[in-house]
């Protein structure tokens, strides 16, 4: 940014330079916004980037205002700030996206391991439990003895 600012002071800035700078800043803002969306789609936290990008949009707005009032040097300063901030957001967004990707991967793996272990435990306990219950049920069934009711006896006698 310092490099661009120093150039601004060396050469006179005219309307066409500022117009180009506006287009460039607007493009940088759009790219920064897309990088924020990418972070969000990976499940990352983007609120700080949104705050920064709103600041860049404020610079862009001030730059346009300065241009309309004919203060091209001031406009160029604001627009450079907008572009610089947008570029910083793109860099930060890349890091956040990578972090979000790795975090979601780890989270998925952890969940996969937890679910698999839980499922295996449930299956083993289920099979063991069923065998125990079955043998208990059969043992009880074998201990039973037939009993003839008094009504049945009377019926047979008749």
């Amino acid at each position, binding site marked *: 940014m310092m490099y661009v600012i120093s150039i601004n002071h060396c050469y006179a800035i005219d309307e066409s330079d500022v117009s180009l700078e506006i287009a460039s800043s607007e493009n940088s803002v*759009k790219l920064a*916004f897309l990088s924020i*969306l990418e972070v969000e789609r990976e499940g990352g936290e983007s609120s700080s980037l949104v705050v920064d990008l709103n600041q860049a*949009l404020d610079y862009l707005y001030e730059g346009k205002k300065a241009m309309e009032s004919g203060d091209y040097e001031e406009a160029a300063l604001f627009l450079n700030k907008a572009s610089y901030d947008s570029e910083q957001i793109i860099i930060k967004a890349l890091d956040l996206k990578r972090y979000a990707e790795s975090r979601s991967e780890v989270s998925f793996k952890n969940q*996969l391991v937890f679910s698999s272990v839980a499922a295996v435990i449930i299956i083993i306990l289920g099979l063991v439990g069923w065998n125990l219950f079955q043998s208990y049920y059969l043992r009880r069934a074998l201990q039973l003895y037939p009993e003839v009711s008094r009504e049945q006896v009377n019926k047979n006698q008749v």
Partner: protein
Amino acid sequence: MNLDDSKIIYISTFFILLLISVFPLIRLSFPRKIEPFFTLSVLGNDSRIDNYFPDNNQNIEIGNQIKWMIYLYNHMGESKYISIRIKLLNSTMIAPNSTISKPSPYLPIYEYRMILSHNETWIYPLEWSVLKVIENNSSIIVKNIVINEEIVEANAVSITGNFRLVIELWMWDINTKDFIFGWRENINYGPWNQIWFNVST
């Protein structure tokens, strides 16, 4: 209860427990969907649906300071890059059409852009006053308006002196790489607001 009945209950319980154990994994694979919407409303001086004009008098004069709050709420499921466009129209000029999502065909006199995160509310203060009005052939022409300390050219003409400020919500569309009026889901949505007032010279 015989062995077959017990078997059915046992197997059912077993499968329910199995499903519970893998449920978090299923939820991770299928994220929850939301109903997307965006709110735009214009509030009065004290952030209520009231008190839009000094002494609730819609007949405004040059220099009358009017303060509104533009209320925005993003529930689109992700951040949105939006543009608030303000247009000054008379009663015969074409207003936006929400049904076919068509904006008013006139150029905005003022525009402000911002990014709103999902679930974020933004109250944008809009202070304005009429700066210059001329009378020409029994028409009233609003030449300039001051919006948020910025002098803008309006050049709106009305025979009756009846005008309206139209506030439109535009969103940056990833597919068209440009701002579009409202947003597109299964159908198009074009949110806008207007407030009428009379200007006298």
